[in-house]
């Protein structure tokens, strides 16, 4: 980094010479490094953009054979038969929609409760810390372990239930997957919900309390309306996760390529059919699976952009109220 001679010159330089050390430094070399550093930073900013474009284009390119053969009708086709080279993705679209929305439906009361619990009832204290940490642990458990647990603990319970209800006792299927998915997405909507609830201005709440409102009324009349768009964003982002969630669903949905007849039927989602079949797929089968992946990518991208856009807007609004 530094010239050799400066090492033993410095004593004299620093203590006696009128111009201090400034002149001894190799500033020209710094200049070059400075430019290189700026270039590297800008390039690394570009890298993420290029990476995302490359992901999109690679998916598009490698699904081209399927896009050319089946076009948009791909999503209307009800048969997925590799032996006959017949590919229609409707069963997986239905499977994905059913599992994710069912999971969302199941999770909403719970995630809302946790949001309200942590955002309003118990903002501090040992119990809320405990609940918060537990939710984080829940979010940290790997998907494959949810699958394992679902397979060996939850599945027999569901099967028993199905026998009692008189439906075909597969055990695995949309319902089982949705249950596990619901547990998996609760942490996401809950943490976003908690944050937006804590953004509700205190004076707004205090005004209502001072008018004699009960906590329930404040939550219903002030907090929920105020935090509504943020909670919707949280639910949207949770939906994005549910749509793309793979392992647990793959292990629990029953791997069936037919349109599900009921919520207890085995099925496949877009993600699970890729997980189940891609490793052995070649030719048009692989292209069709990548086509499914492309759609999965586009859908989750849109859901994420909209969700984050809402959250950003709220953040800006909140900071405007404070500032």
């Amino acid at each position, binding site marked *: *980094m*530094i010239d050799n001679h*400066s*090492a*033993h010159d*410095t*004593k004299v330089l*620093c*203590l006696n*010479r*009128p*111009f*201090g*050390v*400034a*002149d*001894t*430094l190799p*500033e020209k070399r*710094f*200049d070059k490094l400075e430019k290189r550093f700026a270039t590297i930073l800008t390039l690394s900013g570009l890298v993420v953009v290029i990476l995302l474009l490359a992901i999109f284009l690679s998916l598009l390119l490698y699904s081209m054979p399927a896009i050319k053969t089946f076009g948009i009708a791909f999503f209307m086709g009800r048969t997925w038969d590799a032996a006959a080279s017949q590919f229609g993705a409707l069963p997986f679209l239905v499977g994905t929609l059913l599992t994710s929305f069912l999971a969302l439906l199941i999770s909403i009361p719970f995630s809302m409760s946790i949001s309200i619990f942590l955002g309003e009832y118990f903002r501090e204290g040992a119990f809320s810390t405990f609940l918060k940490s537990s939710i984080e642990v829940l979010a940290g458990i790997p998907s494959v372990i949810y699958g394992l647990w679902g397979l060996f603990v939850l599945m027999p319970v569901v099967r028993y239930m199905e026998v009692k209800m008189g439906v075909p006792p597969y055990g695995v299927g949309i319902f089982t997957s949705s249950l596990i998915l619901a547990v998996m997405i609760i942490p996401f909507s809950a943490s976003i919900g908690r944050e937006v609830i804590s953004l509700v201005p205190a004076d707004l709440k205090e005004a209502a309390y001072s008018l004699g409102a009960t906590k329930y009324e404040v939550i219903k009349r002030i907090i929920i309306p105020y935090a509504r768009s943020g909670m919707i964003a949280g639910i949207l982002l949770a939906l994005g996760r549910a749509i793309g969630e793979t392992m647990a669903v793959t292990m629990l949905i029953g791997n069936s390529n037919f349109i599900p007849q009921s919520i207890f039927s085995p099925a496949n989602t877009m993600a699970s059919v890729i997980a189940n079949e891609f490793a052995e797929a070649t030719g048009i089968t692989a292209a069709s699976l990548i086509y499914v992946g492309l759609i999965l990518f586009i859908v989750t991208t849109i859901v994420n952009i909209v969700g984050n856009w809402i959250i950003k807007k709220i953040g800006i609004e909140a900071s405007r109220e404070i500032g």
Partner: protein
Amino acid sequence: MEGTILRTEDFSAYYNNNQVLKNITFSTPKNLVTALMGPSGCGKTTLIRCVNRMHELIPDAKVSGKMYLMDKDIYSMEPIVLRRKIGMVFQKPNPFPTMNIYNNVIAGYKLNGIKMPRDNSDAIVEQSLKSAGLWNEVKDFLYRKGTFLSGGQQQRLCIARALAMKPEILLLDEPTSALDPKSTAHIEELIVELKKTQTMLLVTHNIAQAARISDYTAFLYLGELIEFGPTEKMFTVPKDRRTEEYLTGKFG
């Protein structure tokens, strides 16, 4: 005056084409304290930052006119080289939180990649801390983080850091405004002591402070240099009505 360190000629500065300094011409004599005074927003900080070209960090900041350090044109030097010749002390003490006291003092060398023998850096650290009047207080824990010091001690550490580079001129932008009265007094004493060997340009809001420790005073008002001269003279017989009004507390 015996020798000039810093000299400006018709110097102006602009933010987004808004002129905030208007044709400033003045000079700082060697080994004396020159104070910059004036009401809030008159451009003191801007002027002092133009001296070591720190204003260039702000996009859309422009300057015109001339400024010389030891008769060398500041604006034709490399900013990096220039800044090593000029020390700066900020309003809020800002020691490096990741470094211990020792390394904070020689940060100018360390961060610039200058390696030197241990006794050499020991000497610089000791001398700089002594000059900053901090040696006795910290000599026993030089290897502890600088952020545990009191505000006043931190500010003196920052002065030591600047002094270690043997600057031609030391710029101080309201160095005591974030400190308590006792620390303020301490720093003022220090500045008077440093005068023997160090040229300083001091921005201050505090009229009494300027009177106590400066030799020359420049009075800025709305970006204009209204009056510049020996402090004693300006405080006893101000030439301009606005200077008089400021000194008697009519505004600012």
